[in-house]
């Protein structure tokens, strides 16, 4: 059983490493200073370990609020240490809500058109 867990952890680490590599590549291009492979590996490892800390904090926050599902409110709380980060995350959250509202409106619109078409047919 623990072998499965190790395997999935390895896969997750590899996924993290991949994205970290791409982010470093982009940053290297933007700022014209590239990263050694050792640095990318160290960053990936750090991101992986930081995710553990984040996860434990998120779990504690949601539990404190007597919820079993971690919500965006918990994430906002996680970003409290830096004002800039906090504002950034709040804005992203607003963007997400707006996208969802827009999507709902679009679907409701489609449904209304379909309903009026059916009405006129009856």
């Amino acid at each position, binding site marked *: 059983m623990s072998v499965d*867990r190790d395997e*999935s*952890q390895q896969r*997750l680490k590899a*996924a*993290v490493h991949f*994205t*970290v590599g*791409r*982010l*470093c590549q*982009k*940053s290297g291009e933007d*700022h014209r*200073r*590239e*990263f*050694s492979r*050792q*640095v990318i590996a*160290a*960053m990936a490892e*750090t*991101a*992986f370990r*930081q*995710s*553990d800390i*984040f*996860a*434990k904090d*998120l*779990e504690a926050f*949601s*539990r404190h609020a007597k919820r*079993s*599902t*971690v*919500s*965006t409110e*918990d*994430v*906002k709380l*996680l*970003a409290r*240490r*830096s004002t800039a*980060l906090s504002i*950034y*995350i709040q804005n*992203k*959250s607003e963007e*997400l809500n707006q996208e969802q509202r827009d999507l709902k409106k679009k679907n409701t619109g489609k449904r209304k058109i379909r309903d009026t078409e059916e009405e006129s047919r009856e």
Partner: protein
Amino acid sequence: MAEREPEVGFKKETVSKLLSSFFKEEKTKLSGDAALLMAEMLRVFVQEAAVRSQKQAETEDCDQVDIEHFEKILPQLLLDF
């Protein structure tokens, strides 16, 4: 129509699996929106690490970012997050 290049970042599914793997209790779950926000958070974390390391390398007049540069910025990075 020119395709807009998708921004590099963590995938929602990866983030979801990653964070879930660290939860202590089985019943703890992550909402979809929370996963998306956390993907942003992790992206910012890595970008900060990258940019700060690059600035450190620049300060030391090095062409490439090496492990020493990363190690120097790491403590403050962790404190800031």
